[in-house]
């Protein structure tokens, strides 16, 4: 069972990342994080941006761990899924860079 969970760990990580970003966005808007934290960036966007970068980094660490064992087909599928998780977290987080946060 552990091997199966390891195989899909990249996508589990994406699901966690996606949930964290969505929840944090809702929380930030509800708490009114709309002040400018740094020029051009609201508090909500800064928090989301930092979180997104940390999540991408965590995906990178996971991927490195997955790449250490590629002997079996399940492990190779796990690596591919690790890449997919990383790509999905990058793509689904892209709106943080460009779209208004709480409007």
């Amino acid at each position: 069972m552990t091997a199966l969970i390891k195989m899909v760990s990249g996508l589990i990580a994406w699901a966690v990342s996606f949930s964290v970003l969505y929840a944090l966005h809702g929380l930030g808007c509800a708490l009114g994080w709309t002040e400018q934290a740094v020029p051009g960036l609201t508090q909500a966007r800064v928090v989301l941006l930092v979180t997104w970068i940390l999540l991408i980094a965590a995906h990178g660490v996971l991927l490195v761990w997955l790449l250490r064992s590629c002997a079996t087909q399940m492990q190779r599928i796990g690596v591919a899924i690790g890449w997919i998780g990383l790509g999905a977290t990058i793509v689904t987080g892209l709106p943080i860079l460009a779209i208004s946060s709480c409007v």
Partner: protein
Amino acid sequence: MNVIQLHHDLTRIWNNEPGWRGVFSSVSHTTLGKRFMITAAVFFGIGGVLAMLIRAQLATPASAFTGPEVYGQIFTMHGSIMMFLFAIPMLEGFAIYLLPKILGARDLAYPRLTALGWWCYLFGGTIMLLALLGGVAPDAGWFLYPPLSGKEFTPGVNSDVWLLGITFVEISALAAAIEITVTILKFRAANMSLTKMPILAWYLLATAGMMIFGFPPLILGSILLEVERAFGWPFFQPELGGSPLLWQHLFWLFGHPEVYIIFLPAAGALSTIIPVMARTPLIGYGAIVTAVMALAFLSFGLWVHHMFTTGIPHMALGFFSAASVLVAIPTAVQIFAWIGTMWAGRPKFTLPMYYIVGFFVVFVLGGLTGVMLAIVPFDQQVHDTAFVTAHLHYVLVGGFVFPMLAAAYYWMPHVTGRTRVMRVGIAAFWLIFIGFNLTFLQMHLTGLLGMPRRVYTYPVEAGWTLLNLTSSVGAFMQAFGFGLFALDIALQRRLGKPTRRDPWEAETLEWAMPTPPPQYNFASLPTVSSREPLSDNRRIGVDLAAGKGLLGRAIGGRRETLAVDIVTGAPEHVAILPGSSLTPLFTALVFGGFFMSMLLGIYWLAPVFIVGAAVMIWRWVATTGTTHDPGPVDAGNGYYLPTGFAIRGSVGYWGSVLAVAASGTLFASLVFGYFFLWVVAPNWPPPGAFGAYLLEPIIVTAGALLAVVAARLGLRNFDRSRSGAIAAAAGSALAIAGLLAGAIRHLPEPTFHAFAATGWALTGFAVFSCAVGALAQLFVHRRIASGHVIAQRPHELRTAAVWSDYGVGVAVVVAWLLGLSGAAL
């Protein structure tokens, strides 16, 4: 043993009981799989008739065919039947019938659960149909949005029928999901590692996993809306701190994965059939497994694209829009793998291939409009128009109906043991294909011209007349096509010539058995060395029938099949399955009593049925296990294996783990709802002053610690297991007391505000979970006394610990959440 005698003995052991009793007591996956599929086909016919009524009404402007009240029931029931009573049960039946056969097993992991699922499906569907006949069918659309579905705007029982009937049916879906998952993980041929599984098993594993995590949000939403309607708890009423958007979130948290839940098994059928028709191995097995897993996960990140016009902030829309576009990639990987497979092979243009080509045309078009709808501005333009109706039919009919029609023709020789008799199927295909596109292709245009969904009439001046008329003509053409298809299948069943074994020269194990299949599937169980066992050994069917595989014997009337290691497929133990039983039927009747008492408003009676359900489940579980361990048994071919009673990771344990995962998802959805209302809904905080309270959470935590520690002690030292079970049950009881004390002393009346309503809902859920955990521990206490659980047969201890740990875990979270919430309000 004499081979003929072996088949006689296996037939006696595995066959259904004779006569009418056998109809009610069957637990055979072959029988129940066919029942699921036939019942689903009947519902498809009913849903199709409703579709004809819709098209008759819309064929001309200002039609006098029917009025808005009846029309509301017709389109609501059409959608509800097609989604809940046709598509999901059909895929369940498909999996239930086929799964053990392609995996090389004799039955599913929980045969009685299969039967329970079918009875629940039948009874829930019957409630819906009776309501339709009685003129009180649901009429608020298949997604039943409040406030339209609430008590104010739907005061009759129409919405209750949907909420209770569909929830009843969903018990069946969850049962099937757990069943399918454990079967794939444990009941496979010897040495069938996960990567040697037939590709269909991967699809079904992903589908079942999605059902386990996808259905609980809808079940929760249905419970909350029913409680609001019955008792006035304001979960969805903005004036009291609720929000109708919470329903939309819970519904679509289920609803979008649902599309892929329907699509994936059908895609699995395509991945199975296309290589056979192309006479070449499937290209990209690993890539397809990867794509299927990606779809299974990504599809949970799309639900808000059904809510793009509800005023959610743009950035959040961007997250879901990006995920919605992204999901096209793994879908495309499969499409290209199928095209590549056909390109590499020498396709035979048999009847299943007609439907496969039809699938490609229709589904790809639906997928492309799906990408269009994933883009927020476009979606906002066409939201709730006929464009969306066209899109969803292209996806669902293309992605499910066409592949399942191909699958029907492909596997009918297996089911009936007969070949097709006439060329009616070709004519049926063309009628369905042309009729479908005539109905829905120009419906995109109707939508772009502004025709909304769910309207019962339209004026001549709107300019939609010709488009609607041709859609109606196409719909009736389709209906004739489906009629011909049904005739073709009936003719094959009655008049077809007997077929030879493996008529398609396929490579998967279901073709290594006689057709139609005996109830025991294989006289002895296969050992595999690749994904194409029939290619490796063309005589495998004969060898297995001659008893040369594993478990090629019939001992003591036991229903035996092989259980393997989850990853490697190495033989692990011999699972002993239950025989025919009326318990599933009676349990479903008790469940039905609960739902009917709620539907009829006899609320005092509902708790009686809850107790009845607990008694039935107790009796159900009590009939499993043994007091006499036969020890390792000779499974044949040099394998001496223990029975399932004497191992740690029994199938019962894994089923409990998955059931807890489903329950945990429901709990997480409820916690999400609590915070969602708090953060997003208007009229928060509730009027009045609330403070934090700590005493009750501390009591709950103490009870939880007692339960967890006592269960651990029992697991580590069997001599302490009886007292440990009692102590664990007492810990759960203490947690229940703490929860109830906290709610009674500190929460307002549930009708006061959504805060109180969700607080009471959380408390109720935690109390229920703890009660289940306590019952599990009391049950295992009895089993130790009766000798069913001993140090060498400890798995029920582990299973009970799963339930009690989960129950008190939920209790601790709820107690502290509510205890501390007051300080923040």
